[in-house]
């Protein structure tokens, strides 16, 4: 046989082997106007609401399920699976009335017992739920009858309703758990009570949700099918949006934001969210242990306005408080130097730096750790130069892989200054303030103030919301005066939304339920 012929045969064989001929998959890219294509920046680790953890999983779960309470497109609390509720005068007992017509996606009636079943599973150690302590202030949840659910609290928890919008508190269908065991969260098996039901899931690629015909508000749900495309690269997601393959992106690329702004125009949605970007100090070791002057000096020498304008540049706001603005029933306290000009801050910072015993001859030796990421690197470089110019020391930048940084922060052995952030779980100052309580596991700085802890305790006991608020604000003031961390900026949510998508609302929690959206007819 001639070699050329042989080679061609081999090639043909390879082609057939690879199955290109038969690879036309059954995925139907029909351009039907009721299909919504959304980007999702990471794979949900699970669609079992008790095994899920990430924001991305919660995004999908909010389309699939529904708690007692829900949010409108613009972030106001609204009735969910419960159509109404009463609160006792001492704020300790909530009685929820479920919608009589509420059903599961398989047609079964949704009853109060299903909420009780879910919370029992949530707190059961065998479930190994990430949010096992999410409802720790709830002392009892009981079904009065099929449609009445009573929640008894150990102490007033004014943000309870906000908690009850979280997927960790959604009801569960006991029948499908009994039948499927731990594998119930699979397409075709997952029984949910929200506007959509999961029909397909290709790990690493795509989740497909279709309208739940049994949902109580199905008549007002416009979009028939929602596809979540798992796209971890911002630039890839952006390309797909521009190619017309996505209606909504989960993010916007950071490196060419100016171009995006110019091209996208009105399609770009930037809005404040409950999310802080900060640098933590390791307060358990020198040089920051018992050294508030030094901590204050470093914090003051950072020009936050310059950072958000020149480095992040996507509409972020400089952070002079710990709790972000926009939290319900709260006015964040400001850092002591917030009212000064940067010039004045720098001078004061130099004085404090000198008082702490450092000088040009004896400069501070410091390492700043941050995880891999373009923005993180740029911010670290900018802060390095600010500290150099204002205080005259050279901080050593240490770039670490995210999991390495997290482990180092947790160990509190070699860290000094490190990058971190915190995202509010619900719309209340508590979700930010409680992580600096001395016993809180998320207290990565190791901040321990008896006064602060006591103020938070007092706040937690208050029935009167305005008094509670005063305690919380006072707690924040006390904490900020200790400088346990450097608030840098408050994040914004960044989405691209095609003009054909109607019903989009910006909100501080960055929740965007598909059921609130609709698609305008193409021109």
């Amino acid at each position: 046989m001639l070699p050329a012929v042989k080679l061609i045969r081999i090639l043909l064989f390879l082609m057939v082997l690879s199955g290109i001929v038969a690879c036309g998959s059954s995925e139907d890219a029909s351009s039907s106007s009721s299909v919504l294509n959304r980007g999702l920046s990471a794979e949900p680790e699970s669609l079992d609401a008790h095994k899920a953890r990430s924001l991305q999983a919660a995004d999908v779960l909010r389309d699939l399920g529904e708690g007692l309470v829900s949010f409108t497109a613009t972030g106001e609390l609204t009735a969910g699976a419960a159509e109404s509720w009463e609160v006792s005068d001492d704020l300790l007992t909530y009685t929820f009335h479920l919608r009589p017509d509420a059903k599961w996606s398989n047609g079964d009636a949704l009853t109060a017992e299903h909420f009780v079943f879910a919370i029992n599973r949530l707190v059961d150690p065998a479930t190994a739920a990430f949010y096992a302590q999410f409802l720790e202030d709830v002392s009892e949840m009981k079904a009065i009858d099929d449609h009445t659910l009573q929640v008894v609290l150990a102490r007033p928890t004014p943000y309870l309703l906000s908690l009850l919008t979280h997927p960790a508190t959604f009801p569960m269908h006991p029948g499908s758990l009994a039948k499927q065991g731990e594998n119930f969260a699979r397409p075709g098996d997952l029984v949910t009570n929200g506007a959509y039901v999961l029909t397909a899931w290709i790990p690493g690629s795509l989740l497909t949700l279709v309208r739940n015909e049994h949902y109580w508000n199905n008549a007002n749900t416009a979009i028939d099918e929602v596809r979540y495309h798992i796209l971890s690269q911002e630039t890839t997601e952006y390309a797909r949006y521009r190619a017309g393959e996505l209606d909504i992106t989960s993010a916007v690329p950071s490196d060419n934001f100016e171009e995006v702004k110019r091209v996208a125009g009105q399609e770009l949605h930037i809005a404040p969210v409950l999310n802080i970007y900060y640098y933590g100090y390791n307060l358990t070791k020198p040089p920051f242990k018992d050294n508030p002057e030094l901590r204050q000096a470093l914090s003051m020498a950072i020009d936050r306005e310059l950072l958000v304008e020149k480095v992040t540049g996507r509409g972020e706001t400089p952070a002079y408080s710990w709790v972000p603005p926009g939290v319900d029933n709260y006015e964040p306290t400001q850092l002591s130097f917030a009212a000064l000009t940067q010039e004045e801050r720098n001078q004061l910072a130099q004085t404090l730096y000198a008082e702490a015993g450092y000088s040009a001859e004896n400069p501070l030796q410091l390492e700043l750790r941050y995880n891999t990421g373009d923005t993180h690197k740029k911010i670290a470089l900018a802060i390095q130069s600010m500290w150099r110019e204002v205080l005259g020391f050279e901080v050593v930048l240490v770039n670490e892989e995210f999991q390495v940084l997290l482990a180092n922060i947790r160990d509190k052995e070699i860290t000094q200054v490190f990058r971190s952030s915190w995202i509010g779980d619900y719309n209340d100052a508590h979700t930010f303030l409680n992580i600096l309580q001395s016993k809180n596991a998320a207290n990565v700085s190791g901040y321990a103030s008896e006064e602060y802890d006591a103020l938070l305790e007092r706040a937690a006991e208050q029935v009167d919301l305005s008094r509670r608020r005063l305690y919380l604000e006072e707690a924040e003031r006390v904490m900020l005066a200790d400088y346990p961390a450097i608030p840098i900026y408050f994040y914004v949510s960044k989405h691209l939304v095609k003009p054909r998508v109607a019903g989009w609302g910006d909100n501080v929690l960055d929740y965007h339920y598909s059921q609130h959206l609709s698609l305008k007819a193409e021109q």
Partner: protein
Amino acid sequence: MLRYTLLRVLGAIPTLLLVVVLAFLMVHAAPGGPFDDERVLPVDVAANIQAAYHLDEPLPAQFARYLSGLLHGDLGPSYRYRDYTVAELIRSGFPLSLRLGVLAMALALLVGISSGIVAALRQGSMLDRMVMFFAVTGISIPVFVVAPLLVLLFAVNLQWLPAGWSGASGAAKYILPVITLALPQIAYIARLTRASMIDVLGTDFIRTARAQGLGTKVIIRVHAFKPAIMPVLSYLGPAIAAILTGSVVVEEVFGIPGLGQFFVRGALNRDYTLVLGIVIFYATLIIALNLAVDLLYGVIDPRVRQR
């Protein structure tokens, strides 16, 4: 023959075991764990989750547990894709990676060899220079640059092809990833073929063939082709390796749910079982292929069996 086969199969077991041990140790040596997150868990919750996945046990105990699962054919659950087992993820990812790799290899051979031959025949011509220009750029521009450029041109601007994988229908979605993956190999193979074809065309036996009055087509097909592609054949091994590693980037850029993507994500997320599973899977595959080749030698060459 049976004895020889048996010996070889048994001989592969220690190799595989060594791979498992090393991979296990390396994965666990990386700092951080699968459940570390910026949103730090309450202490009790964290301890409970560690216990649920047996991560609180000493490493030897964890290894024994893993090995015993492995012996029963169980690669364990994924820590990051908690609704899936590692075996399920490999089953869903490998066919895609294989298909991409095979298609890219086929394309690279087809285009690389033919453009190399054409360039060799028209040595010094405009066409030759163009082919070589593309070959040099193809080799020097990395995959992560080529991919977005192709997407920008063909998907965003011209809108001929889908920009991504998920939700796209039919074979069109393979085109850009396969081209991206094949491009550096096309370039390399074209250069190899051209150089060796020029060498061959200058040899005495080709001159003799010409003197006998044979046409160019016949000379190339009958006499020159076979010796000219020998260097290409010996390059196939490195090419396959390059395509395997290249597919990691391509799968990431195009969002293709293949093994490469799972591997990268698994490593970043400290998804111990997923990374281990993929390493063991590839190791087994390579060992099995080597074994098959050796056994084939045994069939062809009786002297091998005698040893």
